[in-house]
C-alpha cells in the first residue's frame, strides 16, 4: 500500500479511540457483518468513528494489509486491531467487550 494510505490509516486509528472500518455507514450499512458490529457498538452507547471502505478502494485494500486481516469489518480500539465481526460478537457475548470499552465510554461522558 502507498505511504500516504498507510499514514491515513495510522492517523485515523491513533487519533480516535474506537474506529470501525466497515462497508457502508452505521446508518446505511452495506453488509450484514458490518451492520452487526456497528449495531453492537451503538447498543453499548460507545462513540466511534466509522470509515466507509466502499468509498475508497485504496483504503479498503490497505486496511487488510495493515491488519494482516483479509476481511471487513475491522474494529480498532486505542490503535489496536481488536477483531472482525466474529471476534467482536464473541467478546460482546462474554462481557469482554464491555470491559474493554467501558473506560472509553466513561471518558467520553466526562469530556
Amino acid at each position: 500500500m502507498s505511504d500516504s494510505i498507510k499514514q491515513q490509516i495510522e492517523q485515523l486509528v491513533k487519533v480516535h479511540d474506537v474506529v470501525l472500518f466497515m462497508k457502508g455507514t452505521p446508518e446505511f450499512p452495506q453488509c450484514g457483518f458490518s451492520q452487526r458490529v456497528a449495531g453492537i457498538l451503538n447498543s453499548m452507547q460507545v462513540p466511534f468513528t466509522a470509515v466507509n471502505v466502499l468509498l475508497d478502494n485504496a483504503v479498503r485494500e490497505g486496511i487488510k494489509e495493515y491488519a494482516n486481516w483479509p476481511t471487513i469489518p475491522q474494529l480498532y480500539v486505542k490503535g489496536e486491531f481488536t477483531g472482525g465481526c466474529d471476534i467482536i460478537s464473541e467478546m460482546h457475548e462474554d462481557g469482554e467487550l464491555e470491559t474493554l470499552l467501558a473506560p472509553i465510554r466513561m471518558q467520553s461522558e466526562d469530556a
Partner: protein
Amino acid sequence: MNETSLPPDCDTLAEIVRRAISGSEVEVGLFSGHDHFEMRVVSTAFAGKNRVTRHQMVYQALGDYMRTEIHALALKTLTPEEAGVNDE
C-alpha cells in the same frame, strides 16, 4: 486455467486447515449460498493466543482462498480445553 472455477467445498477447506494447524479438529459448513462458510477449529496450537492471532493462523492456512473464493468465513477457534467446557 479455467475462468469459472468451482467454489471450494467444505471438505477441501477443512483439509487445508487440518494440515496447516497441528493437531486440529476442523468442521466446515456452508451457511449461505456457495461462498459463505462457517468453520470451527479446535487445536492445542491456539493455547495462549488471543482471538486475532488464532484467526490469523486460519486465514494464513487458507491463503489465496480468502482473497478470492471465500466471500465470508464465520470462524470459531478453540483449544480442546475450551471446547470441552462448552460441551458440558
